[in-house]
């Protein structure tokens, strides 16, 4: 009995039981559905074992969208709880679990896979490559992320969710003060997903350095690829810090070491330092690809080349460098003294300079352009004013003396949502709508898309602007309730109304997908937006080998030059193409990782040891495996390229 007690939820409530039932029923439905339609084979052959970067991208995308809704429901619950003073919808414990899961899900399991979804799909196409450098590792990255996400999500129904905030500060997150297994889940699921991310980081850096089309110099890469490169460079420097922090944290939790504890010489501040040495660069990992997406979208829909390309590249490189020098602004109030606070204030504010340059470059790109307000463009244009408010409030937070007043208040919550939602969510919606036709072969409905945009944009501002005021009025963040006397009530109610608007916007986006699947034209050609970069020089949907003939490029906007100046990019004869084989290994190995994580969460040592051995066995097996991939014959290529080649030839 004791044994099974540990899996029980420490703080059960009807909502949790309901979701248990819902999760159970969904799983059963999926299994029955797959069996009934005899789709197990299809699922295994085409998706679970795939090493195709485009499919992996799509799987990342679906997971990210699912997690967006999971995190969104958490957000709605929080806003509902705080809408009126002394509300009892959630109790303190549940509120703590909800904002912790919200933060973790949004950053680690929503935003991260979203950027990797688009990077996976777009980067190899933009640089004229057949796949990423290590396709099988890429699949492993995805499955590790996915299993990490699943492990994190089951904490809700087995054993209890983490409740120490997404920052998980010790000693609060230590065994003394967080006794449920929630924080174990936090440590292990992020660890598993994080290893996947680190692998991706290396994979994409190698891909971008080694697999660009002939003649594509670094300074001829499209902007999104540039941001992908720099982002992955940050990943490679930042994620090892997280890995170590989580490892040490796990040891404190599982083995009773005293690294971050209050006693026996533990240093709680070390956790804060390690966490933010990763955590601050992490926000740039999220924002830089967004900058890349906006650059592509704004230039395409203004029919103009990107203004100040060189300064754009320079600014992302500078930002990436500075992002490692500012972490201490997250704990100005920890008493390090005015000297180091001053230094970190200045480095923090300095980041505003390259960021400002980028904003002006986008504005100058639109100047003298011919602006079409498509849905992706609306998100990009909407991003500019909202992100500017996020940016300037960031500078305000960067001033240490003033931050003593903003720190840990709703002002901060408003600020980071003002950067992260236009910066990440808008960008992802822009990128999603923009690349959707390439991914799926039809366009999303523009009319519904525009309605969704306005709900999201207005709902967003109504939700978050009031928080600047409640913050300055003394409302701390993470408070599950407040008394009537504080006067926070009306503005929080307003914020709840805004959150409902946001929710409607997201529901419209889902409806748009449903509507467009049913009604959109499938006859859209391969370049429906009249775009400028290489990913649009492929068939729609893209062939497994991407390009029948490797493109030859000598400008940033190769496709545009082909279309306007008739510069050919596909030269020479079609040759047989070498492609990697599918493999079940990444999926199987990640499943083992899942069991490994689960065993450790509950300190079940025997399965933990067995799975550890199994993981190494998989690696050993892989290193002795002979798998040279396969060739696609010239006839096959010619057959699949038949219709499209005509088009390409015309352009030559």
């Amino acid at each position, binding site marked *: 009995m004791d044994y099974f007690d540990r899996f029980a939820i420490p703080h059960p409530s009807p909502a949790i039981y309901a979701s248990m039932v819902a999760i159970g029923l969904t799983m059963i439905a999926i299994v029955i559905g797959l069996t009934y339609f005899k789709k197990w084979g299809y699922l295994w052959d085409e998706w679970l074992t795939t090493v195709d970067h485009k499919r992996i991208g799509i799987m990342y995308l679906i997971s990210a969208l699912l997690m967006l809704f999971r995190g969104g429901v958490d957000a709605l619950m929080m806003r509902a709880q705080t809408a009126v003073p002394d509300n009892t919808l959630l109790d303190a414990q549940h509120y*703590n679990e909800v904002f912790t899961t919200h933060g973790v899900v949004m950053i680690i399991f929503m935003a991260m896979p979203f950027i990797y979804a688009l990077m996976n799909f777009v980067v190899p196409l933009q640089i004229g490559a057949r796949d990423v450098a290590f396709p099988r590792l890429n699949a492993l990255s995805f499955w590790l992320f996915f299993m990490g996400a699943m492990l994190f999500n089951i904490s809700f129904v087995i054993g209890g969710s983490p409740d*120490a905030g997404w920052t998980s500060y010790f*000693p*609060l997150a230590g065994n003394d*003060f*967080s006794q449920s297994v929630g924080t174990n889940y936090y440590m292990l699921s992020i660890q598993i997903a994080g290893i996947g991310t680190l692998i991706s980081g290396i994979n994409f850096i190698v891909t971008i350095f080694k697999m660009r089309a002939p003649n594509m110099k670094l300074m001829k890469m499209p902007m999104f690829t540039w941001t992908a490169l720099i982002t992955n460079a940050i990943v490679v420097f930042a994620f090892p810090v997280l890995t170590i922090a989580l490892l040490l944290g796990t040891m404190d939790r599982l083995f009773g070491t005293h690294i971050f504890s*209050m*006693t026996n*010489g*533990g*240093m*709680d*501040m070390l956790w804060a330092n390690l966490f933010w040495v990763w955590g601050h660069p992490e926000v740039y990992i999220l924002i830089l690809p967004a900058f890349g997406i906006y650059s592509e979208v704004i230039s395409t829909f*203004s*029919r103009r080349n990107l*203004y100040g*390309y060189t*300064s754009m590249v320079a600014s992302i490189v500078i930002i990436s460098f500075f992002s490692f020098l500012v972490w201490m602004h997250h704990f100005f109030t*920890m*008493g390090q*003294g005015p000297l180091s*606070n001053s230094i970190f*204030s*200045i480095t923090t*504010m*300095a980041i*505003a*300079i390259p960021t400002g340059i980028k904003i002006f*470059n986008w*504005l*100058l790109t639109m100047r*003298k352009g*011919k*602006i079409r307000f498509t849905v992706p463009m609306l998100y990009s244009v909407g991003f*500019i004013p909202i992100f*500017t408010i996020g940016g*300037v409030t960031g*500078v*305000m937070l*960067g*001033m*240490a*003396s*003033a*931050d*003593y*007043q903003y720190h*840990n208040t709703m002002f901060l919550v408003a600020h980071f949502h003002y950067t992260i939602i236009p910066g990440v969510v808008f960008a992802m919606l822009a990128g999603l709508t923009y690349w959707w036709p390439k991914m799926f072969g039809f366009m999303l409905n523009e009319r519904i898309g525009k309605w969704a945009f306005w709900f999201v944009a207005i709902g967003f501002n109504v939700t978050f602007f009031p928080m600047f*005021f409640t913050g*300055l*009025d*003394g409302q*701390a963040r*993470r*408070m*599950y*309730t407040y008394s009537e006397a504080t*006067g926070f009530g*009306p*503005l929080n109610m307003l914020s709840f109304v805004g959150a409902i608007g946001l929710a409607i916007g997201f529901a419209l986006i889902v409806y748009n997908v449903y509507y467009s699947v049913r009604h959109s034209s499938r006859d859209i050609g391969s370049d429906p937006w009249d775009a400028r970069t290489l990913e649009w020089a492929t068939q729609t949907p893209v062939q497994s080998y991407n390009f029948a003939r490797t493109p030859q490029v000598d400008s940033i906007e190769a496709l545009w030059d082909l279309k306007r100046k008739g510069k050919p990019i596909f030269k020479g004869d079609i040759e047989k193409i070498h492609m990697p084989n599918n493999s079940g290994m990444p999926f199987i190995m990640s499943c083992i990782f899942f069991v490994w994580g689960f065993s450790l969460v509950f300190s079940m040592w025997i399965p933990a040891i067995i799975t550890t051995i199994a993981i190494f066995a998989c690696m050993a097996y892989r290193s002795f495996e002979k798998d040279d991939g396969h060739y696609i014959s010239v006839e096959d290529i010619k057959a699949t390229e038949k219709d499209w080649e005509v088009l390409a030839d015309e352009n030559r």
Partner: protein
Amino acid sequence: MIKKWSFLSLVFALLSVLAGCEPLMVLDPKGPQAETTANVIWISIATMAIVVFAVFGLMAYVVFKYRASKQSEDYEPPHIEGNPIVETIIVAIPVIIIIFLSIVTVKSTYEVEATPKGYEDQKPLVVYASSSDWKWHFSYPEEDIETVNYLYIPTDRALEFRLYSYGPITSFWIPQLGGQKYAMSDMITTLHLAAEVPGEYMGRNANFSGKGFAENIFHVEAMPPEEFDKWVEDVKANAEPLTEEKFEELLEPGHLGQLTFSGTHLGFLPPPEGHHHGSNEHDSEHDSEHAHKDEDTNHSGH
């Protein structure tokens, strides 16, 4: 500049009236330190308003002027790589703004970290403020009294708070008197404040510390020095003494109302003074101090 200022103050005044008919707490300072931060905040709002107006204005102009629906069919946008003059301007202006704000920041940060201006030659009132789940303990060592969850302070006197915690990291914050600072279990942080207006203020823990966090507030009352002295005398004469057993009881997780004691806990449970983790000065003396503390703050009970 004046126009912008008055316009902004108007907007803010209006919004804060809407927000509850009272000025926003942080912008309604009652002491020199909070006044410094409020001024810094206003300066930054004004400066940042310029940036916001510039970006919004430029964007509105570009978006309206160059939208496709307003242009002729055959307009083909030009290819422009960049322009050294324009690019110099868009770099130079942010640089100037950031330099200006950096100067303001450094100056004000040193100010709020020091004894409040005008009180330098006075001996500050020292108060040890320690948090435990989810309470605040205020020890007045010189007065030899201790309170729980409320704080009486004299006006026009420098206050020196020494902060530490018997549990998770907390943050000591009285918005109308000054910015917050963390209280941690293995070191002491110091916060300098002063109150210049008698009155009642809200104080709270601003750093999430678990289940009872929302209610982790304390009541602050600033009063003329004579009144404060009278209160101290009164407490000394009438309050029950704080014993070690009693204090252990208080440390148990939970909420308590306001309590008053004569004597402090500093004698039998010394604060973690004298060392800063992160520095390598962990000599044996400190270790023994740690060991001592381990016995006394045993958290296995919850």
